[in-house]
């Protein structure tokens, strides 16, 4: 991982958290839309499970520490969302999903992550979270995430293709030697 990729990831994490707190959260109230979770899933789709896993954990943990609920809840759930997105995203990219397809997939995974966060908090008895709330918000969050994804997918795709941020191609594994006789 290069310095430029680390800097880009840090900038993306901070930007996502700031936009979530100052713009997305207030504008989508009372639907608990989480733009950071959506970013994690979109990045996971394009960059793979490793990046999705790491990004989900870091951004989730930072969001947890800035919130009042027990730390680690969002880190765990968003990490799982990034992991799943990276795994399933391979299929999406192989099949040539466009913006709408990726946005829909990422929105479904992000809504699932939000559902999991609320359920985990409900299990922990934290902040009045209940299973009913988790279930009630699932579809509105998914739909809003899908709309938001239509904007975010092209942006993130372009960012990941930018010079210095692009994921390096994996090196070819030597699977055998072929002797050519002249």
């Amino acid at each position: 991982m290069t310095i430029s990729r680390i800097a880009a990831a840090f900038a993306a994490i901070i930007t996502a958290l700031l936009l979530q707190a100052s713009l997305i959260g207030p504008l989508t109230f009372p639907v608990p839309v989480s733009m950071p979770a959506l970013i994690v899933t979109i990045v996971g789709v394009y960059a793979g499970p490793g990046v999705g896993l790491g990004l989900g954990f870091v951004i989730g943990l930072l969001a947890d520490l800035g919130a009042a609920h027990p730390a680690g809840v969002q880190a765990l759930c968003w990490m799982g969302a990034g992991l799943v997105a990276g795994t399933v995203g391979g299929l999406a990219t192989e099949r040539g999903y466009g913006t709408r397809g990726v946005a829909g997939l990422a929105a479904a995974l992000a809504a699932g992550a939000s559902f999991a966060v609320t359920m985990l908090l409900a299990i922990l008895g934290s902040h009045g979270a209940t299973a009913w709330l988790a279930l009630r918000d699932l579809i509105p969050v998914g739909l809003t995430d899908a709309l938001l994804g239509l904007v975010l997918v092209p942006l993130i795709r372009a960012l990941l293709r930018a010079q210095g941020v692009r994921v390096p191609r994996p090196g070819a594994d030597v699977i055998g030697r072929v002797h050519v006789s002249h």
Partner: protein
Amino acid sequence: MRRLTRRQRIAAVALTVVSLLFISLDFAGGALSSARGGATGGLGALYRGTDTVIGPVRRFVQGIPDVADNRAELARLRRENADLRRAVAANAVDAASSRRLDALQLQAASRSWRVMAARVIATGPGAGFEWTVTVDVGAREQVAPGQTVTDGSGLVGRVIAVYPTTSVVLLTADPTAGVGVRDTRSGQLLLASGSGSSGMTARPLDDGVDVKVGDQLVTGPAGRTTFVDGVSVGRIASVRGAADGTVRVAVRLTAPQSGLDLVGIIVGQPLRTVRAPIGSQARQ
């Protein structure tokens, strides 16, 4: 479908364990309080900075759904404000009217007059005169031409035209109005005439009489004027002699001629007892 590499699987397991550890530590106590404080403080500072830039955009977007409601609310508040202003103005008018009614009542009671309260409903030129007002009482209320009009403190004018429900009052300041007045200090008689916005000017019947600035002038004498006698007309503001030797007196009116609202028309005077000549009873 991508497959996880061995390192990724290890990382996933490790991060899951770390997450659960964080949850346990934070849920059990305040083990992460310093980390939480640092993150909250750092993000808080960034939130404040971001809000400076994004806040106006967010507030604009948030306000869009309420535009129609805000307009309706604004219109409602404007109407309410106008109503309140009208109420305040009406209260002030009512208070002033109340004071005038008190004055009229006091004057009527002290002089045993029958006073008909009337509200000025129109001002300006009317009935061919310049200084007139129209009041909201007329023949139905027993108003008759020639009746004296007062504001409770002084002479306002006299009724010159009566209609079923309204009457026209000629104000004393009208240049065509003339009033016989008496100096209450010296008892001398003067003939006062209106001089528009300057009030009235008076001319003593006898140029050699004693009139001074500040003397009170009232209508009178009884039986010699079309007005009810004893109504205050004003005070002498200045006395000056003309080139022809006559004396001209400027009168500052007791009743202001502008801004009239509530006035009283003296529709009846007390019946006077017929007095016997002095000494006649003694002779009987």
